[in-house]
């Protein structure tokens, strides 16, 4: 999880990933940020994140993003 927080902070230093739980719903995380994060996650965790995975539920919080990574690692 620490590694994920580091990646997220590097991409979007102004966002409080530790506490926000409605990152997409509240418009805190923009599509540009999401693409940047996805690109970093794909590189760092060696996973393939599909367009279908880009739903608010998967990006509303750091925990949700972590769950997505774990799911994709298991699947792939």
């Amino acid at each position: 999880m620490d590694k994920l927080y580091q990646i997220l902070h590097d991409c979007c230093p102004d966002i409080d990933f530790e506490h926000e739980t409605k990152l997409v719903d509240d418009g805190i995380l923009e599509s540009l940020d999401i693409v940047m994060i996805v690109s970093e996650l794909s590189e760092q965790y060696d996973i393939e994140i599909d367009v279908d995975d880009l739903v608010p539920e998967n990006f509303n919080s750091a925990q949700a993003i972590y769950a997505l990574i774990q799911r994709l690692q298991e699947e792939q």
Partner: protein
Amino acid sequence: MSVNGVTFLAFLLLAVILYYLIPKGVRWIVLLCASVVFYLSYGWSAGLYLAVTIVLTYAFSLWLGRLAAIHPAGETAQVRKAQKKQLTHKKRLVLAAALVLNFLALGVLKYGAFFVSNVNRVIQSFGQEAFPLPAFLLPLGISFYIFQTSGYLIDLYRGKYPPQRNILRYALFVCYFPQMVQGPINRYDALAPALYEGNAFDWANLQHGLLRMMFGVLKKALIADALAPTVQELYTNFYAYPGSMAFLGAALYCIQLYCDFSGGIDLLCGASTLFGIPMQENFRQPYLSTSLADFWRRWHISLGEWMKDYLFYPLALSKAFGRLTKRARSVLPADVAKRVAPCLATVIVFLCVGIWQGPGWANIAYGLWNGLWMSLGLLWAPVSSKLFHRFSWKREGLFWIVWGVIRTDLLVIIGRYFSNAGSLMSALRMLKHTVTAPGFGSLNAQVFSSVGLTWATVLPICAALAVLLCISLAKERGVQVSQWICQRKWYVQFLILFAGLLLTVLCVYGNTDYVPIAYVYENV
């Protein structure tokens, strides 16, 4: 049938009465019939194009649905994986064929003449004879229904929902009349349930719908149409005035366009609310945005969402863009490298937004203007973040919010030089005139009155704008004005509704001096 005329109101009234008179199960048929009548009132040939699109996309939707229903049933995981890959490939081919056909129709009808005129320019420079310019009919709402049907097909490909098997129900989704003039580009999963359900009569829907319709009509008549002659004069004869007046023209055009487009959307969303059918919202106080990215999340939302889901994400997450990021990492600092793919995807998306606005290099420049500034914003973000951190500035502070709004509106106004100047050269000349000859010293009452800005014309516009600003600020603070009105005592509601109706009749429907101007985005 112009939607801001009395005929449309009579048509709408009849449709609403019929809708609630017949049994719930078949109410959607009234909507379909009304939509067909509405669309054919613009001409039979336009209807033919629409019918072809409906039949074609319906056939492809069933095909995609059939492929999506097939589940790989091989004995081993390896076989199943191979089958799945084959199936995905087939689905991709079907979708590609559907999208090519769909966008080809839009491309030929909307951009055919622009393409031929550019080809002519090239071949004429080699002394060859020019091709005659094609003059195709542009069916009403083609840019909206092509995007709507394409979005539907992509969703089917992604397995988001099963296809609509009833062709008449599907036709209603495509040609539902409140969305045909200038959108919004609705999503099937959001619109379909209310569209087919047969909604029960609800007094609140009637109140909300009527209030919103009145608001839209007044916005269009009192602000957009009142500003239109001044804007037209300042864009066409900008050389006759000081350069600062050209800037004023662009700023007024921003207001005119917003009140025209969102006024039309209010009228049509209000009309849809009368049937109990909510459509996607298209605006959220765009001129209160604090960045250009924020502006595009609040302006023409349905197009922005469409571009994000069906173009930006697939493009930015494509393998080619992945390779680009990898290459960028090897030559650029990490902080910049990870921003390369989203930046490039943004420029491409806004290039498409510019092209969507209409044929012409000026529109392409408009798209690039927005795309490049947004990309620069993304590249600048880490530096800005460090600065804010270093000096302990607060982004939510009033100064930074006001600064953000002014800066964003300035960029939007300059962008509008391109989108309304008629040609790229004209836009650049206008911009040059603004910068090189602002002529602040020669601004006087005579200059303003010569473009139609006298106290008599400006005061009513300012009053209407003040009301609009108050409503926008209230919405920004989360207060829904129509909901607020509907929660008042019955006589307060009655008074507001009566005053609104009176104003609408006096200023619009009963005013013989007022001739409505066609909506800017009608027929794009």
